[in-house]
């Protein structure tokens, strides 16, 4: 398909982004092979040790070794982002297409709903929901579902806008004159054209979901027993790591998070160029 020609060769941001993601995956996979992940549990090493030859990234106040902790935390954080972002984009695509293609009252309902929910401060709602439900302790998957609740609005709006303009194009009329019905037009004609845009939306949604999850976790509302990056930061604050000078506790998760966000942003920006030829820099 012609659009794939434009991938990485001309697109610096996309190349960098994908490279960074690749690095992340390599960290996770290779780490899983070479490092014993049990060392990420408490009391697997002496507590509060600075980085040394024995503990490459040191240990936290509860004896978790930092390097295994990072290797174990990355996939969980990514999983939360992927589930929440994925659900958000799937919901957004369905709602956006329905609203944008069929218009009329269904469009008014969906549009008003997304506009109203967009104005609600997401983090505040998430905090309320999470703290109500987490009395017994949240699992990572529940977190993902909670974050997904508030990640559908932006994809709905942007996809709706794309569909609105696309349905006016003559090839939609042409498809109708060739005997296609509405649903077939949506799936065969419109969806493939929006594919690059949907992928870009997805990556952006994942980044937003991870950010929301980190926010919740840093407030202590995350899964208590899973070594996610956000929870690590929470524990480091809880145990006063900054004041005690245990930089190896909070620095690694921050570095990894920055890496994740730069990777996701670059990829999303590069995908935007791919999706929207006007943004291309040739």
């Amino acid at each position, binding site marked *: 398909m012609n659009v794939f020609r434009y991938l990485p060769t001309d697109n610096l941001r996309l190349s960098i982004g994908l490279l960074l993601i690749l690095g992340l995956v390599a960290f996770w996979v290779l780490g899983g092979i070479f490092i014993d992940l049990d060392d990420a549990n408490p009391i697997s090493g002496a507590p509060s040790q600075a980085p040394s030859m024995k503990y490459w990234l040191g240990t936290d106040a509860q004896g978790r070794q930092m390097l295994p902790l990072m290797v174990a935390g990355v996939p969980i954080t990514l999983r939360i982002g992927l589930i929440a972002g994925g659900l958000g984009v799937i919901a957004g695509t369905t709602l956006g297409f329905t609203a944008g293609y069929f218009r009329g009252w269904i469009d008014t309902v969906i549009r008003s709903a997304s506009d109203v929910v967009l104005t609600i401060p997401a983090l505040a709602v998430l905090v309320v929901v999470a703290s109500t439900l987490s009395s017994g302790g949240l699992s990572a998957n529940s977190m993902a579902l909670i974050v997904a609740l508030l990640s559908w609005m932006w994809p709905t709006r942007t996809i709706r806008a794309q569909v609105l303009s696309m349905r006016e194009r*003559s*090839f939609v*009329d042409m498809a109708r004159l*060739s*005997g*296609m019905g509405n649903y077939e037009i949506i799936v065969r004609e419109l969806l*493939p*054209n929006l594919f690059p845009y949907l992928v870009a939306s997805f990556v952006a949604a994942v980044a937003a979901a991870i950010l929301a999850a980190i926010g919740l976790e840093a407030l202590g509302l995350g899964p208590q027993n899973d070594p996610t990056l956000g929870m690590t930061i929470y524990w480091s604050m809880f145990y006063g790591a900054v004041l005690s000078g245990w930089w190896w506790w909070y620095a690694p998760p921050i570095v990894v998070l920055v890496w994740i966000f730069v990777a996701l942003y670059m990829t999303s920006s590069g995908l935007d160029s791919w999706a929207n030829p006007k943004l291309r820099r040739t």
Partner: protein
Amino acid sequence: MSLLLEAQNISKVFSSGGFGQQQKTVAVDRVTLNLSSDTGSIIALAGESGSGKTTLGRILLGLETPTEGKLLYKGKDLTKLGNQERKTFRREVQAIFQDPFSVYNPFYKIDHIFNVAIGKYNLASSKEEARHMVEEAIRAVGLRPEETLGRYPHQLSGGQRQRIIVARVFLLKPKVIIADEPVSMVDASLRATILEALRELHKTDNMSILYITHDLNTAYQVADNIMIMYRGNIVEAGDVEKVINHPEHPYTKLLVNSIPTPDPTKKWTNLSTLSTPPFRGTAIGQGMCKFVDRCSVAVEQCKTSDLPFYLTSDTRRTRCLLYEESSPVPVDAVLDY
């Protein structure tokens, strides 16, 4: 002569704006016209932008629903057709659109427009037969399959793309073609080729063509009959040579005179010799001649009455008081083609 499409008193009103500030635009105002199969004529529908000609074309194609009036296909109301009948309607009434680029889905190769139609209408029983049909259609419009099939739209020129749309119509063999400005976005040297291809189609397969345009020159060359549309109304209709060489309605006269003739010895008449319209600035609405604010020979009655057509000859009708000696024909009387 079997009636294929009957537009009965069709009007289309667009309303825009939100709560309380609704603005209504009357795009099509009570147009009645019939298109029959097997007489196969080429009718031009001419007008400027805002005349409603594209909207009327879309209504005839079933892509827009009229606000008032009915569209009948083979005697049955379009909205009441069964699934199978609707499919036949879709196949028999085809279109050629203006923009040779946006008619193609950029995701697919150009083969897609043929394959979808062949698939949905079961036109071929095997892949070889389908391929054969497509190649034949492409050759029929003067292109070579090796140079066009398997390519993406942006790899072909505008002229080639438009010809392929004509090839698609050739393949489908519809009864009626609605061609909306098929050559206005194509280079001058290619226009004649494409229009000639359309004329050939009409001759060999006897299809009726509704040629929507603002270019009276090509309308003259291509069509047998012409309807002049102004602000939603058909103001004059008749034989194309007579209407263009001897226009009756003041708007038709204005239109014909405004065309720049490619003959430097016949210059445009000096505009300052034309008299100012007496009712300039009048607000245009229903119940009056819509041309009254620009017409230099308008009289009071033009502002207050909803004019009928006047039959100035067997085949000519004009909606202007200048011809009130001729027999009047009501506006919803059928225009038969």
